[in-house]
């Protein structure tokens, strides 16, 4: 009799778990295994071989440190997750999900774009020789480098301060992506916990949390964020915090709805009859059941957050110069739109592409995870 793809809990550390891609390779799935192994191997080799350049962060580096740490953290998280998934990868459910997801070509393209942007951001120092804040016109007297057209040396040209646009976009990608990941990570965690507790306990807890949610949702989000940022000194932490605190109600509302229906299900009653405590039921038994909508909300939320951050930066309330940010780059280029179209165009394209990619993936996930769509074509 065939197994269910598990190895039991006995074997905690095996090579198949430590080295990503080894397990599918052993099971004869060459493309998946080889690809995984190659990708992770290349990343690791690059990191070791060029550690000096990778560690050389731009000056005024707090924002950049935070961004780099977040991106590396995501990478480590993916690695750890891949072991977990490896243990259950043959679960029928997951297989069906991937088949449905893969049918949606746009979503797959979205994943490709996100991976591309992510790798470009992670490996930014290797891809560009320039510091994003370096101004050769003023620091080295090369005045001809101001508003330089795209050329072999500067693929996307330079701005009015003679800074390389490509470098700024790459480092800006670090900032944008990390703000997206962090803000959504915080908001989804907060929203999930609050929504689950409110939904399961009901009564006054539910009332309190949901009225708070209503309050947040009744208030125009952008205005709220601008007001807060205008009052305090803008910094990357403040931006992340404000974006997270205005985002959680969306997750909380969805999770609460799911929990409300789950807690009436028989398995919840069975769990209570066996003496499981409330927190155990909520966090161990019910939360795994709401992961599908939460993943969708999180994915769409990242795109949303990146747009919002770009908007804030455009208005000058976002990440402060000289830290590169796509929004402020577009704002900088606005004055030179006729003379130097490349300043605003490339960061604008970057915003559009990344946000579109996240939205496509989010929609694809929703279609693939939604049981009501089962059997129908998943394409939008």
């Amino acid at each position, binding site marked *: 009799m065939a197994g269910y*793809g598990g190895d039991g809990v006995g074997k905690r550390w095996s090579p198949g778990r430590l080295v990503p891609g080894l397990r599918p390779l052993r099971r004869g799935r060459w493309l998946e295994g080889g690809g995984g192994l190659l990708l992770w191997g290349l990343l690791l080799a690059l990191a070791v071989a060029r550690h000096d350049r990778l560690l050389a962060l731009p000056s005024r580096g707090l924002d950049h440190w935070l961004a780099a740490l977040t991106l590396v953290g995501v990478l480590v998280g993916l690695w750890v997750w891949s072991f977990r998934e490896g243990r259950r990868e043959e679960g029928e459910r997951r297989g069906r999900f991937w088949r449905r997801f893969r049918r949606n070509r746009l979503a797959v393209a979205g994943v490709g774009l996100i991976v591309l942007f992510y790798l470009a951001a992670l490996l930014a120092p290797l891809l560009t020789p320039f510091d994003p804040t370096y101004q050769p016109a003023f620091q080295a007297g090369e005045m001809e480098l101001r508003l330089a057209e795209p050329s072999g040396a500067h693929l996307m040209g330079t701005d009015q301060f003679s800074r390389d646009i490509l470098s700024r976009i790459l480092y800006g990608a670090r900032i944008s992506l990390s703000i997206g990941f962090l803000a959504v990570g915080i908001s989804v965690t907060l929203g999930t916990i609050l929504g689950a507790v409110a939904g399961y306990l009901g009564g006054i807890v539910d009332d309190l949390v949901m009225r708070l949610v209503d309050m947040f949702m009744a208030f125009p989000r952008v205005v709220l964020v601008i007001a807060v940022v205008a009052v305090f000194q803008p910094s990357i932490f403040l931006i992340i915090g404000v974006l997270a605190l205005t985002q959680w109600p969306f997750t909380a509302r969805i999770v609460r709805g799911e929990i409300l229906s789950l807690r009436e299900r028989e398995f919840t009653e069975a769990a209570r*009859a*066996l003496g499981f405590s409330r927190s155990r039921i909520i966090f161990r038994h019910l939360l795994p059941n709401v992961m599908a909508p939460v993943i969708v909300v999180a994915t769409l939320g990242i795109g949303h957050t990146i747009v919002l951050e770009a908007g804030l930066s455009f208005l000058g309330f976002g990440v402060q110069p000289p830290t590169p940010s796509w929004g402020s780059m577009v704002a900088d280029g606005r004055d030179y739109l006729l003379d130097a179209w490349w300043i605003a165009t490339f960061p604008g394209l970057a915003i559009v592409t990344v946000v579109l990619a996240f939205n496509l993936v989010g929609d694809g996930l929703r279609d693939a995870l939604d049981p009501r769509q089962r059997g129908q074509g998943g394409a939008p």
Partner: protein
Amino acid sequence: MSLLEIRSLRSWVNTPDGVARAVDGVDLTVESGETVGVVGESGSGKTLLALSIVGLLPEPGGHILPGSSLRFRGEELLGDGEKGMRQIRGKGMRQIRGKGVAMVFQEPMTSLNPVLTAGAQIREALSLHRGMKGKVAQEQATRLLKEVGLPDPEIHLEAYPHQLSGGMRQRVMLAMALAGDPELLVADEPTTALDPTIQAQILALLEGVCRRRGMSLLLISHDLGAVAGVCRRVVVLYGGRVMEEGPTREVLTRPLHPYTRGLLRSRPSMESRDALLEPIPGDVPEATAWPRGCRFHPRCAHAWDQCRKGEPELRDVEAPREEGPPAEPGEGEVGARERRARRARCWLVAEEGGHGRE
């Protein structure tokens, strides 16, 4: 001291149509190691009785009335709440759930968490009740699955519920219930959702597990056949009240209450294959408005004036018992008497010379 002692338990539920008096004065005793069946039609209060024992009455609306008593190992489980009596809360009750009393539900399809593997759910219960972790829990979970007769337990531990058949799921449920080593297992129609061949297997399994572990069983079912095969004693429930109780064989061969007789006549039997089945006429009345007098009288062929006027007591009946079960070793006199007690709530029985209880 009986393991479970229920005295005049009244669990009512507020519904939009009024107060449903679903369990309305039930007395029930389960001795240690005893198997007791509770039978009755849908709507007779069986499930609510089971839920009252584990303290899971539907909320909001479910409440237990003052004067009810529910003792487990002599310890009273009901206390005063803001709306009548209520189950004690918090740690005390959770100690009893799972460790003292475990419950198996009707629908094995929906009683398991769809996103956790069978093994994960059994290990959860083990870590909660026995503090087992990692390898120890894994081995114990394997042993439990073996005990409930699932082949290849190591493999099935990794299965998600949707990969298992109904019978297998019910076995996993049972393994979860057994994880806490309970003294009493409450099984609420554990076989109703299964097909007949599997039903027989699960019933035999329940019987065997109880016998080997010395565990008490409260088997709730509408199927007299199921109860007959597993339980030594049977309690017939109707209208939220006990109508008749006694040793299973006696109740099934010499039913005293017209309702029990009706139940027996409405099921097919192997002996008389030509006989037409006789359903009990009418339906179970709404729990919000039980009839006056005997609750069964509108459907009873033998009803007369007395039945419409007053409700009969649950009376002890002295029945000739030439083949009564022998006393168990170590069983107290009270326990033995309780085990053999034969009671019925009917004016007919009273007329024929039963004597009132208490």
